[in-house]
């Protein structure tokens, strides 16, 4: 789960990390109130588009403006888009003194299988750039559930910044207390007096949300498309793509391979959908419903290799869906594995095309859609 910058900063504040003074503005704001607030922050303020995409700065999503001109600038920003995301919220912040900029993050190094603090005296730039050009400026320290003093010591001495210990400690508390997957402060600004988180990137582990109900207040609706939200309600793993052939499969790897096989034969998939192992007739119907929400679909490819999934359940689901809904697009099905003979029979009796291999299906789809 991704948090927007203002939410991340809210969280940081709760854990004792200083953030710039600010207020959030949405469409149809009270102009008098907003101007007053902006002026109280100073002669200049920073407008930051609150969108769930990176590269915001380069795309004009961060602007320093005269507080006197805040209304027109806000109206302009709230009327525009960044990388396809509508700007619906803008954070208006005080302009802080960027005396020195640092980088600090706490994240999971999945390949080393541990948590790692990454710190650098080069803040305000992409950390991957620093890793490439000036790797000696990066400190990478493995850390466990117990935050040992010597780790904090090492970060603060390498960066010559004793104040960073407290910040690192807070990040560690957030990470373990709320099951984060990434906490990044870039830049972590020293304004002459104290350290301030000038930006906040916060990601939470979706698998752990069951034990942190309080985090659901941060859920951002735009993280998903409308169809993705519907799929989530059904408990289906679904990602909307840009093509015109719907895809349903069992097992994430198999579905990914299905997308690849379609593309290999010149077909563009419209989505990724994994019904998961052991999908029932009902789940199959929900999957078809979801996929068919996409406009201008030319066909739907169903790829089932049944291990724990029963092919006859899938076939029944397809047939029942067909009976209750007008199927406007051709369905190409690949059914193999547990109870495949029964499943294929059911489909054949109901005029649904069934094939034995993924590639055959992909070629058939290409033939149909041209």
């Amino acid at each position: 789960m991704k948090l927007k910058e203002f939410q991340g900063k809210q969280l940081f504040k709760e854990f004792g990390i200083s953030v710039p003074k600010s207020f959030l503005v949405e469409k149809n704001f009270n102009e008098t109130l907003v101007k007053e607030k902006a002026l109280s922050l100073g002669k200049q303020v920073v407008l930051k588009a609150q969108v769930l995409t990176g590269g915001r700065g380069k795309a004009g999503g961060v602007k320093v403006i005269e507080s006197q001109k805040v209304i027109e600038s806000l109206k302009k920003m709230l009327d525009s888009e960044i990388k396809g995301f509508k700007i619906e919220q803008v954070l208006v912040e005080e302009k802080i003194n960027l005396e020195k900029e640092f980088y600090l993050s706490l994240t999971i190094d999945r390949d080393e299988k541990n948590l790692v603090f990454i710190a650098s005296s080069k803040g305000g730039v992409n950390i991957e750039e620093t890793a490439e050009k000036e790797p000696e400026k990066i400190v990478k320290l493995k850390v466990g559930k117990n935050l040992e003093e010597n780790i904090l010591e090492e970060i603060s001495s390498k960066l010559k910044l004793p104040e960073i210990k407290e910040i690192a400690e807070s990040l560690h508390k957030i990470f373990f207390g709320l099951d984060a997957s990434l906490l990044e402060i870039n830049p972590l600004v020293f304004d002459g007096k104290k350290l301030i988180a000038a930006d906040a990137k916060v990601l939470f582990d979706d698998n752990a949300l069951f034990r942190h109900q309080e985090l659901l207040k941060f859920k951002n609706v735009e993280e998903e498309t409308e169809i993705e939200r519907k799929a989530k309600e059904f408990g289906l793993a679904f990602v909307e793509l840009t093509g015109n052939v719907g895809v349903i499969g069992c097992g994430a790897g198999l579905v990914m391979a299905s997308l690849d096989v379609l593309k290999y034969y010149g077909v563009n998939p419209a989505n990724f959908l994994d019904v998961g192992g052991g999908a029932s007739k009902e789940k199959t119907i929900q999957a078809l419903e979801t996929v068919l929400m996409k406009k201008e679909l030319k066909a739907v490819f169903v790829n089932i290799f049944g291990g724990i999934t029963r092919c006859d359940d899938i076939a029944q689901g397809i047939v029942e869906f067909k009976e209750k809904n007008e199927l406007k697009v051709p369905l190409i099905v690949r059914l193999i594995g547990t109870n495949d003979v029964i499943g294929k029979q059911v489909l054949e009796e109901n005029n649904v095309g069934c094939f034995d291999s993924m590639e055959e299906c992909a070629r058939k789809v290409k033939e149909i859609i041209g």
Partner: protein
Amino acid sequence: MSIMLNENSKIIVLGITGKQGSFHTKKMLEYGSKIVAGVTPGKEGLEVEGIKVFNSIENALKVVKAEWAISFVPARFAKDSCLNALKNGLNLVVITEGIPVLDSLEIVEKAKEKNLIVIGPNCPGIISPEKSKLGIMPEHVFKQGNIGLISRSGTLTYEIVDELTRNGFGQSTCIGIGGDPVTGTDFITCLKEFEKDSDTKAVIVIGEIGGAVEEKTAEWIKENFSKPVVAYIAGVNAPEGKTLGHAGAVISGNKGTAKSKITAFEKAGVKVAELPSKTVELLKGLL
């Protein structure tokens, strides 16, 4: 031969009385797997498919000996159950999907500390065809033979194994290492075992987007693995930043792309198939 799991491996099923646990216990027994006990707290005294159920691993081990545990325990309770299995000296296969990453890290660390194997989480398990099955895979596609297989995807494993079997290539052992970002066993651990196994003549590696385990593996293969390797990487057409089913299948920025993995493997002399079915063609060429 086989690696890690053979016809003598004794197994305890954790979460045996649940829907998945009981169903798969039946299927594993039918395959000939030596399941010696099951555990579900509060259900001691019951029997599932003739297997005695105990309240705890400790209780079970008072009566039986075992080297492996397979866990169907739901995600929210998985950590404690897995840590307990490791504490009691059992290697572990974790079928469960949805385990929080911080929990997985603890499980993996404990296994390292105790020098035990953890396969998974979020995996289909391990099978040494015609010897033993410790997992949920559809046994009828597997056949005993000389090809080792290691995969991050369960269903892609079945897909490729089906192709292998149809073309006369049986399998020594197939391991599903799982689709999560943090897993116990990885490709290298399994490859080390396959290197030592005289009956394994070649290995198929099935990877996917996310992380850098394939890149690390490619480097290791170049220096350390003497047998032919064929790979298939899923997710060539995956968009950035979107998780595709598996929690570990996500491209972050420019890290974890299928292209990066394919390039790494090719540089290491590993043949990479463009389509799952082409793995067999490539294998034929190498053997």
